[in-house]
């Protein structure tokens, strides 16, 4: 089965600083891959290159077999991208926001209406759908953000710390949804987080980056075996020490 996400020797240099060097990995449909690394390891830069927000200085990224650099529109059409610090348009309601992004993705109107209804239902947005986004709680905002990421039904979903700032109930809701998205709808998911327990529960494989370089790419068991540890947290610390 062809990979839905492929990072091929990705590199990014900011002046003299190599933020990312020779990072390669793949994510297949139905897979959830955890992207791990300490702060400043190059995770966000890698994800931004996958989303086409940053141009790599080396290598190439592919989304749904489309080169992010050469066919950015086709690649982005297949991608749902969310980072923890992305906010919502304050003076739009959740439904208006979903409709706006649906139109930007050129989802046909009848399908967009159906899709918005589904997402409003799935994320329990109905109770606050007419409130302006600036008046929503952190958890409500995050639900709308993830719904926004999925409004065009992308084959690939990239989530950068989607549970940051959420309480345990809201986090659990998001994690369950990610699992269903991959396992029931066959989406390829990259999930970046600092919560290693979430990775153990959710991810099929992990990609560990440290100082811009790939430290590990494989399933959790292989990470444990490579470091002679029994817990992912210990294996992670061993690799980034």
């Amino acid at each position, binding site marked *: 089965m062809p990979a839905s996400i492929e990072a091929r020797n990705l590199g990014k240099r900011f002046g003299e600083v190599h933020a990312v060097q020779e990072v390669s990995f793949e994510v297949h449909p139905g897979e959830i891959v955890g992207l791990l690394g300490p702060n400043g390891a190059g995770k966000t830069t890698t994800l931004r290159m996958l989303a086409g*927000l940053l141009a790599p200085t080396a290598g190439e990224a592919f989304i749904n077999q489309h080169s992010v650099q050469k066919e*950015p529109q086709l690649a982005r*059409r297949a991608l749902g991208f969310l980072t923890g610090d*992305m906010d919502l348009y304050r003076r739009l309601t959740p439904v208006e926001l979903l409709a*706006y992004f649906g*139109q*930007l*993705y*050129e989802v046909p109107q009848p399908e967009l209406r159906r899709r918005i209804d589904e997402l409003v239902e799935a994320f329990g947005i109905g109770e606050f759908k007419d409130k302006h986004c600036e008046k929503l709680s952190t958890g409500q905002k995050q639900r709308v953000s993830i719904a926004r990421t999925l409004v065009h039904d992308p084959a690939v979903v990239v989530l950068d710390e989607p549970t940051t700032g959420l309480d345990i109930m809201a986090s659990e809701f998001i994690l369950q949804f990610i699992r269903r998205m991959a396992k029931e709808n066959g989406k390829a998911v990259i999930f970046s987080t600092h919560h290693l327990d979430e990775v153990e529960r959710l991810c099929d494989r992990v990609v560990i980056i440290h100082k811009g370089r790939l430290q590990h790419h494989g399933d959790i068991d292989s990470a444990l075996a490579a470091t002679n540890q029994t817990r992912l947290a210990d294996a992670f610390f061993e690799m980034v020490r």
Partner: protein
Amino acid sequence: MRTSIINTIFRKEILEVLRDKRTLYLVILLPFFLYPALFFLIGKVGQSQAGKMQQEKVTVLIDPALEQTPVPALIGSDPSFVIKVQAFDSQALAEEKTTIGIRVDGDYAAGLAANESVILRIAGDFSKDLLDGRKQSITGLLNKLNQSLLEERLQGVKLPPTFAQPLLIQEEDLAKPSQHIGKVLGAYAPMLLMLFIFTGCIYIAIDITAGEKERRTLQTLFTTPVNVREIIAGKFLAVACVGLASALMNLFSLVFAVLLQAKIMGGNVSAISLAISAQGWVWMITLIVLSTVFLAALSMAVSLLANSYKESQSYVSPLMMLVLIPAVMAQMPGMELTMTTALVPVLNICLAIGAIFKGAFSLPAMGLVVFFALLYGLLALYLASLIFGNENVVTGEKVSWKLLKG
């Protein structure tokens, strides 16, 4: 570029603006009510101040040497003066707020009898509006006395009154009242128009560029299959639309206020109203649109350099200076639309709009201004697109000039 995408972005930006009460106030209400409020306030306050000054009594100290002359009775004929015949000291009089003194150099009667000029001195602190106004009243009264004394002298030597006035200068103003209004408006209205276009553009430009960078919503937009030019076009149209709305509100307000003022004054509305031909209006609207294009693109380009709403607000004052200095220069006496001034951004538009208000514009000059305004607008738009395409704008970082050059 896909028009449906540009339209989607434009409509979303406008929807957000319409829901922002602060922007609506700045862009629509303030420009619309400015002129009627200004005209009303200036008229009312001016009237009330003039009435107050008219009612206030001013003491006129008359030198005892003038007691037996017609001067005390003449000044006393104006009920707003209280006449006191007494000597005064100039230094003490300088401290007085409601007192004026009149003294004579030499002997009044002897001077007149000898057909000499008798010097009358009017003293007081004329930096004060009240005393300055009354000094003019006293001068007017004394001029009448002077005229009658001159006629007496001429009669004495059997000469007609016209003998002392070989030339009688009479002014024949061929300008219509509307042209006088045009002269005043031509000086001030272009500056206010520029100010409101700029105000209309800059706040929405900040919100949808630096504000979006700060909130990271711009990053979200860049992850969609929309290209940079479509984003710029949608956002630029929204900024320009708001700037234009602000300018048109300002223009409607001006026309409305002039007509209202004319009606209140009981004048002939058609005669006193603005002397702008249909062609003039077309040029005016064209110039307003072009200046909006320029200021909208410039506002976007500058706002994009900032990383946050707060930081971009610090750019507003220098940018406003850049707009206001040429606009103020356009008001200076003798400043006219020439080949040189037509090259200066903002100054050229202000001078051209001023010429339209005065009803004195030429087609080649207008064509030149339109050409350069369009050129500057396109350059500003190109600069905005260059900055928008910068990788750091996408990720909400500080704009790198190196990347911009590359």
